[in-house]
């Protein structure tokens, strides 16, 4: 198979969510002598970019994106041992701790954000639902997070987003993390009022905010 053809095949496997074929195709590419970084950039990343474009155009939905992420992971299991430590590090855009705040059991919106962040190359630690402020912070410390993302889908759970910012401030750790908030009743005005760094109305907004923040960190 020609080089371009095998890379397109890898990308297609990501889009189709075919884990088994993705692993086979990655192995074929490596056997052909392709540099692992080229397989990642031209195959896996290219495929994930197509997934992101299709998601934005609403041609595919959450299940397809979830399967693409699983396929990426399966393919990376094959290729990761061949990557240099530097290359592995470059693939990671940043580390995010995400959850639905105390008292809130709604998680689909938060799950979509988590999945999109993974497609963008973030390492995501999903705390689930009904998460106290202290757990957001302790997990962020443990995994050396860059970003804390907190969702609230009810006006009565929104106050617990404020708790996270207050907790960080109390511990003198406020500047250590980029805090972004979202969820149905959350507004830019609320985010500003509680001292959060950013507000995302949609999952795509959240992904863009996270990417912009990490880019600004790299350039400063």
């Amino acid at each position, binding site marked *: 198979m020609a080089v371009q053809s095998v890379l397109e095949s890898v990308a297609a496997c990501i889009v189709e969510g075919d884990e088994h074929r993705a692993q086979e195709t990655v192995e074929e590419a490596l056997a052909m002598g392709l540099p692992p970084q080229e397989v990642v950039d031209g195959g896996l990343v290219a495929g994930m970019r197509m997934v992101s474009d299709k998601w934005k155009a*609403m041609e595919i*939905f*959450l*299940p*397809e994106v*979830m*399967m693409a992420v*699983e396929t990426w992971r399966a393919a990376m299991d094959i290729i990761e041992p061949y990557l240099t430590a530097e290359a592995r590090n470059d693939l990671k855009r940043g580390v995010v701790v995400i959850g639905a705040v*105390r*008292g*809130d*059991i*709604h*998680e*689909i*919106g938060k799950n*979509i954000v988590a999945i999109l962040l993974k497609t963008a190359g973030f390492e995501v630690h999903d705390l689930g639902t009904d998460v106290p402020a202290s757990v957001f912070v302790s997990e962020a410390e443990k995994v050396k997070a860059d970003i804390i993302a907190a969702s609230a889908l*009810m*006006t*009565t*759970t*929104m*106050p*617990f987003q404020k708790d996270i910012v207050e907790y960080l401030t109390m511990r003198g750790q406020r500047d250590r993390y980029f805090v972004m908030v979202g969820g*149905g*009743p959350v*507004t830019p005005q609320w985010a500003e009022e509680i001292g959060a760094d950013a507000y995302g109305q*949609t*999952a*795509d907004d959240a992904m863009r905010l996270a990417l912009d923040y990490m880019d600004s960190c790299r350039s400063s």
Partner: protein
Amino acid sequence: MIDFEEIVDRALNGPLCSPQDFDLQVFVPKMREVVRKYEIKYDDANPVPPDDDLADRVFSAGLEFYEAVGTYCVDSERIIKFTQAEIQQALEQAPSAVHLGDGKDRRQLVARRPESDVLPWCSVGAGGAGVSNERIFTSLVTAYARLPLADSITTPSLTMLDGRSISAGTPLEIEGAIRTAVLSRECLRRAGRPGMPLVNGIATAVYGRATIAGSQFGFRPSDGWEIASIAEMKTNFDLLSKVAYILSLGGNILAETGPIMGGLAGGPEGTAVLNAAYHIEGILVKRGCLHHPFPIHMTYGSNTSRRLLWVQSVSTQAIARNSHFPLLNLGYTAAGPMTRMCLYETAAWVIASVVCGASIEAEGVARATHVDYLTPLEPRLATEVAHAAIGLSRQGANEIVNRLLEKYEHHIPEAPLGSKYQECFDVESATPVPEYVDLYEQVKSELRGYGLPL
């Protein structure tokens, strides 16, 4: 129908499954399989498709899906599953009507069919939207109760109590539930409709204990008590406990659900199938008196886009044609009060729902996510359109809905927020400003031009 105790037993002893496996290994593959098997295909040109065969296939797909997938209990990590025979029995024994309210305000909500000439039940209110203080709450609820075509009310959600923010799971939530009950009953008395049913349980109540608190201070068995789902096809002990309590109270359960288009069910096809499946879950697990869905767009948070109108239309027809369980559709607009767009959206989803066989709850405006952005005028239009839509065919509804969509669908992503209640109404007298009255009459005139006898 199997007893509720059996449901609890299956929640405690059903097959174990992790949440991730339920979503990715059980739910998603089966949904893809049934959408393919039953050839469910979205039709962009026809948001209200007059297609009996499609509706019946969606229903069959929903049945097969629910039998295979069941309901997942997140607290026990087990699946509550049913046999085909149990599902069939539930469909046969499900209620076909429910009486809500007391005294002269007691009325019957019945199951309808597509293109039925039976008047739809019109529940009016806030769709869960929040208000900033009790003055606005009482003004709104009294005004809702005075709407001539309103059969029941969903109250707004109190967000503040005596200057304090209500936080879920705290004593303030309990007091908020009690205050909601007490104030609501007083508002109904002032409006001369003391027996009018309140049908959203208690909007402020997140946990079951708050629901129970409200039931001691004014919420009655003859009201409607909403029991929700966790997306998708999930429940928990708190929700099941609410069911247990309300059953003992003798209350009327509204089996509520908001299947997300773009979420686990995928696109419009899967979301329509999921809505049909949820109606069975509503009978068996939530022990509902009716199915109360609000399929919702994952990004826009509303259900007036072309795809969501298709989802509502097709799944409503599926259920109305094949089940006698009543349907009460809940709408969410993207635009807010005192905008032309909000009124167009209202008309579109109400026409689609009523003509396809549902009754209506109107509605959450501005996605019901902005405090104080709601008025009685939007639900008023909804009730007038709901009554005027009687006699329309699905084909006729499709034409009107297409014309309305042309006017607003491209603006959904950046929909105008509109005005707060206190900006477009006199709060004391609950009367709209002249500008809003003019806008309202202009839109009604446009709708008359489309053939609606308003």
